């Protein structure tokens, strides 16, 4: 029986059904093809996950080390063609030359005052527009590489507990799609590894014990704690 990481011999397919041999070969190939393609994405999400889990690690501090600058610009008040808050915000951003994901954090109470935030990994813009004065104030915070890494981990453009915010920047959608692709790739890699392991009879028992232990511990957290407490 060939091992998962050894190349299969040319005569292998003759031993069993052709489909099964082909499936085994391609399953193994696709396992490491997917792993190689997703390598840098996996490293980013794994490493940034570790940093996010340890906010007290001072070497990865980003927000307290941010660089801030304030500036004010004159602006042309968005016309009626700029529909709704999103249209007005886009028009103001166009005038300022800022691109990013728009974030609604305050409720608009005065039609002349318009506050919103714009985010992109590494940069935070806090924008206050005054339509009566025809001026816009921008507070820009730029964070270091650690800040970029942390934001990339969570940069989805949506929040589960805030339905007001939705993706409005094309690059956020592209990044969200890559997150989906990485997740799908990881699921495929797990399933393909289970198949490869199962094809190794001499490693089934120990593998089953280890997989069972992992599943038991993981299951305790996913469903078990609710039963216990």
């Amino acid at each position: 029986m060939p091992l998962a990481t050894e190349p299969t011999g040319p005569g292998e397919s003759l031993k069993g059904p052709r489909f099964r041999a082909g499936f085994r070969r391609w399953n193994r190939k696709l396992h490491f093809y997917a792993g190689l393609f997703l390598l840098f994405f996996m490293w980013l999400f794994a490493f940034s996950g570790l940093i996010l889990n340890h906010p007290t690690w001072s070497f990865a501090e980003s927000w307290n080390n941010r660089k801030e600058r304030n500036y004010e610009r004159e602006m042309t008040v968005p016309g009626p063609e700029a529909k709704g808050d999103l249209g007005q915000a886009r028009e103001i951003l166009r005038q300022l030359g800022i691109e990013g994901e728009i974030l609604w954090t305050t409720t608009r109470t005065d039609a002349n005052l318009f506050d919103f935030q714009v985010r992109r990994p590494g940069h935070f813009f806090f924008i206050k527009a005054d339509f009566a004065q025809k001026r816009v104030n921008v507070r820009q915070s730029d964070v270091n590489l650690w800040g970029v890494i942390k934001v990339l981990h969570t940069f989805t453009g949506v929040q589960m507990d805030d339905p007001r915010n939705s993706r409005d920047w094309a690059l956020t959608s592209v990044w969200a799609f890559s997150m989906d692709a990485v997740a799908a790739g990881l699921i495929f890699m797990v399933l393909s590894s289970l198949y490869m392991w199962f094809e190794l009879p001499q490693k089934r028992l120990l593998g089953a014990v280890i997989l069972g232990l992992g599943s038991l511990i993981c299951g305790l957290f996913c469903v078990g704690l609710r039963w216990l407490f």
Partner: protein
Amino acid sequence: MRGRFYRLIRDLHLYFGLFISPFVLVFAISVFFLVHSWLPRIASETSTTRIVSALPLPGDLQTLSGRPLIDALKPALEKADVRGEVGFVRHMVKEEKLIIPVTIPGRETTVSISIASREATIVTRETGLAHALVTLHKSPGQHVPDIRMNWFYMRAWRWLADATVYLTLFASVSGIYLWCALRAERSVGFILLFAGALSFFGMAYALSH
């Protein structure tokens, strides 16, 4: 010697990979919920309300905040039979009330304690498996580190989440080593590795510049 090292790395890649595979599935599946801000409703959410009185509240309640406040409220929560990770406690001074969110993956409990009457109204919501996966994905998280991990099981989850990262990094590095040994696959592998690097750095650059 080289063969033994190869076999050792191959076995460790396999066994460590098998151990973390359920954890990787938890993190990967919950990505879809988080990215699309959507939770499948497999079973309907249930909510129950009950009242518990004569709670043992600490005398210096007004002066406490953060982690000391959570620690001081633990006996009251135990008396009320509420277990789990305690979130940010809101002290409503005017109403003389404490609002305490307590989370177990898949269950959210809100304990409203009336300080004067030492009575608690406890609302428990069973939020289901998908919500549990999301909670685990986001735990412990980057916010309010001073109060986080105040329940043993969530501390344990942090160790496991860290272990998942370390073992994933090991699996990826050992995977590269094992791939390098497959000479016939090197060229295709290099192309994919390069394409992946190009996509990743290209996107990261476009997003951050």
